């Protein structure tokens, strides 16, 4: 080896630099191998979902919301990595039935079909209701006389509960984009007395953008249970392990309370 213009001191420094560089390369290479190993070692589970406020928030970045926090915790504690797939609302149950997704949330009772419930107990309940301008708030919807003659609007295509349909003949569907905003605008501008919503919580919660404008009452007794469902094509050992993990977690109701603090 020929070293030109080089004294003993610089030679030692060069050896040292080469040694340090080699060490760094070795460490980085080891870390990469380790990381790859952990990626491949952890099985993934695909969860089909859609924007379901306030539980699932679909935006520009990764999915957010209490539902996502809960599902991630559930899967991670069972040793799986969740992969979320946003699916059109109407196709979610079909995706689950065909095994295109391993799990799905939210799933309603009538959509369960052959798929497996994660738990007997529903994760949450949806309650329909009427939203009013605050000054016209009706707290008790069991008093039919208070709302039977009101002009009530609703998003076209929404299923109306028979109790409301039977007792009010002024129900008007509203169609178009950003339907929730349209309903609330119509309500605020007094073009309607009330708005029927299939699920009150997304409209009327302390973080809702409509909170300052409206107040909603629930049709209690007309709630629908909402589940996390698993594909029947999922291996039975995976189903067992997910149910085991579910039992160890606090129920979603408690999980929500913990997260709302």
């Amino acid at each position, binding site marked *: 080896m020929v070293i030109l213009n080089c004294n003993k001191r610089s030679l030692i420094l060069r050896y040292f630099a080469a040694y340090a560089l080699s060490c760094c390369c070795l460490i980085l290479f080891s870390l990469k191998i380790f990381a790859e190993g952990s990626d491949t070692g952890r099985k993934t589970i695909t969860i089909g979902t859609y924007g379901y406020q306030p539980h699932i928030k679909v935006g520009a970045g990764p999915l957010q919301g209490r539902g996502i926090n809960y599902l991630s915790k559930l899967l991670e504690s069972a040793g799986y990595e969740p992969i979320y797939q946003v699916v059109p609302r109407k196709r979610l149950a079909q995706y689950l039935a065909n095994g295109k997704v391993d799990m799905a949330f939210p799933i309603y009772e009538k959509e369960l079909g052959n798929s497996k419930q994660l738990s007997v107990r529903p994760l949450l309940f949806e309650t329909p209701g009427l939203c009013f301008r605050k000054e016209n708030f*009706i707290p008790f919807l069991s008093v039919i006389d208070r709302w039977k003659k009101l002009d009530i609007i609703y998003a076209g295509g929404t299923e109306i509960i028979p109790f409301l349909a039977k007792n009010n003949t002024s129900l008007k569907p509203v169609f178009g984009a950003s339907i929730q905003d349209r309903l609330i605008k119509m309500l605020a501008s007094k073009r309607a007395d009330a708005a029927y919503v299939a699920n009150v919580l997304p409209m009327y919660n302390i973080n809702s953008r409509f909170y300052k404008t409206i107040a909603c009452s629930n049709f209690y007794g007309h709630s629908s249970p909402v589940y996390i469902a698993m594909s029947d094509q999922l291996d039975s050992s995976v189903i067992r392990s997910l149910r085991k993990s579910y039992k160890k977690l606090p129920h979603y109701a408690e999980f929500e309370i913990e997260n709302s603090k």
Partner: protein
Amino acid sequence: MKFSRLLLLALLFLNNKALGVDYPELSIEVINIFMASKEVLFEKQAEINSANSDKSSLFGQLFLREIDLVYKRNHGQPLPKADHPIKALLYQSILSVMEDNRALIMDPGLVYKGLIPATFSFQLSQRFSNSGYPVKIKFVGLRNNLVNEANNPDVWEYEVLSKVAVSVSEDGGLVQQVTEEKGRSMVRTLKPIYFSLDCLSCHGTVSDNSANKFISEEHWTLINKAGFKMPNYQLGDLAGGVSLKLDVLGIQEGGNLELQ
């Protein structure tokens, strides 16, 4: 041999533990917790309807602490521990109902929120009874005097309430019975409720109507805050009851409590 003996002992121990649940006693505890939570809601009306007071005691563990105080006052002992899934479910349901009403309770734009003991009890019974567990609880009213049709009593409840209505018992006698339903044993419990002074502000006479407070008599209304006509009940009249139904086999099987 040694292992099989140990296994047998363990099975016997577990079996005794399972059979050791006193379902009638459990039923009474559940009803008492239900009633105590309802009472707390009554006492917290000012806080619920205020625009800006501290409302932290209406949620979470602080709310359970309030129920504990009322339970101690009523029964001389602390709130039972959640040592059975049914009791744990009830506590979870109570907290969930309050959480469901957070937007309403915190809304500064509403003078009257309408979260009263009757609506709270109804929501709680729905939440508790629709949870996939083999247990149902509900507030039952008297037929022909129902404010909410969902509080209609079934045959057993109707018979019990009819007997209670004509009985001279002053202790508000709780009724328990084991009934058969589709070949399954049900432990049924009904605790009658009688109108107290607080209840009469909505269920009493026109002079009791809280909507008439600070209004001169000539302008009094027969319609109460809920929007119903005052039904003219008197202090001590039978209001209805809290009814609980436990499917004993369902609970013992365990399969109904959770999927395997």
